[in-house]
């Protein structure tokens, strides 16, 4: 199962589990705020080789219609995808 964002954030005494055991893959915060630059795909150049998807440390690049999509909620903007792409299909653009 892929971890995903949940609405409910357990914070009070009654919310917390009895033991240090909780549902796997329970996300309550995004990582988008870490980013200084965002990867932007040029679809005309992408051939869907999936190297960017393979080498992304955060797993935020996924297959989409024979090309790729990027989950900007969790991309930290490290730039590995842009560097690994032989066709230069991903550009890092500064976040405003």
């Amino acid at each position, binding site marked *: 199962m892929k971890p995903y964002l949940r609405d409910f954030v357990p914070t009070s005494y009654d919310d917390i589990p009895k033991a*240090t055991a909780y*549902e796997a893959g329970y996300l309550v915060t995004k990582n988008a705020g870490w980013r200084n630059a965002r990867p932007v795909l040029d679809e005309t150049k992408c051939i869907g080789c999936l190297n960017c998807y393979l080498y992304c440390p955060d797993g935020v690049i996924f297959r989409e219609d024979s090309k790729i999509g990027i989950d900007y909620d969790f991309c930290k903007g490290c730039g590995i995808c842009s560097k690994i792409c032989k066709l230069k299909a991903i550009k890092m653009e500064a976040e405003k």
Partner: protein
Amino acid sequence: MAKKFLSGNEAFAYGVRLARPQVISAYPITPQTIVVEKLSEFVEDGSLNAEFIHVESEHSALSCAMGASSVGARAFTATSSQGLLYMAECLPYAAGGRFPIVMMNANRSTALPWNIYGDQRDSISQLDSGWIQAYACNAQEALDLALMSFYIAEHKDVSTPFMANLDGFVLTHTYEVVDVPTAEQADAFLPKYQTDNKMDLQKPRNLAFSAGPDTNTYFKYREHLGILNAYKIIDEAEERFAKIFGRRYTGLTESYRTEDADYILITLGSLSGLVREVVDELRKEGSRVGLLRLRYLRPFPNEEIAATVKNAKAVAVLEKDISFGNEGTVYTNVNSALQKAKLRIPSSDYIGGLGGRNISKEEIKIIFDELEQQQSTVKFLGIGGETNGN
């Protein structure tokens, strides 16, 4: 039920076999070795169906038991002294993780100087680690405790690891006639371990996580409530045990001739047998003396102590333990119980039996003699060393 001539270690191993642990991980150390040897024989001869893991250290022994518990298996380990201290990192880990592992500890002195004989400084140094701590006084109680410990530890309201302590050599290596219950009786007593606190392929979980300043106290408070709940579950387990096996234990403490006693000696473990004899002898001479044995140090029997000694003129604690720079830790705890109950009774502390030093009847009689002076002192038994903190 069958009568067998067993040492404390062997009796405990028989009790563990009756509890059918699924994983046993242990590292040998004197005077605990016989427990793990016996259990590995049981696994070999097929009378116990468990995974026996030979780990490379005590730290690994408890770490492995936690791994087994983290997938919902019943786990057992055993250690002593240096081994207990070596696994110390894992003790609060198991308690905080609410893994109801049972561990037998053969009470033994800790180095330096090296010494393999019995005192209780090893387990008492770990009182704050979040484990239930029980102290057996004979081989029968050791066996019964082995079986009951799983019931108590695994109860959903408790979910706390359990350390069952046996005095090294004096209890672990002394033979007695012991009633060994049948597997059917044991199965009727002890339900299968069931928990949500586990990794589950159908329902994956993340375990043993970090909890920051905002929620950490909540987890720790829950942990505290869990071990306090043992108070009630120990009684439940003993009631259930009595129905099936016909032996009724008395909860966190056991008192002997204390009802009308003016002077009460508080102790724990196998020493209580000797104190009991002295009480009988002194009673014959007309002294109103009694014995209060602490069967559990965690949860601590605050109320039982206060209720038992409330009419006494003075009490003394006899313990194989010293918190250097202060006093015996059992004494500190007993005084706290008296203070909370607003009892103003003189109390003394006798540190004895360190490194297996023999405690004689005469020395126990001297304690009762000195109790009549109704002082509050801390003494090293047998060497006349008096040590009043300040």
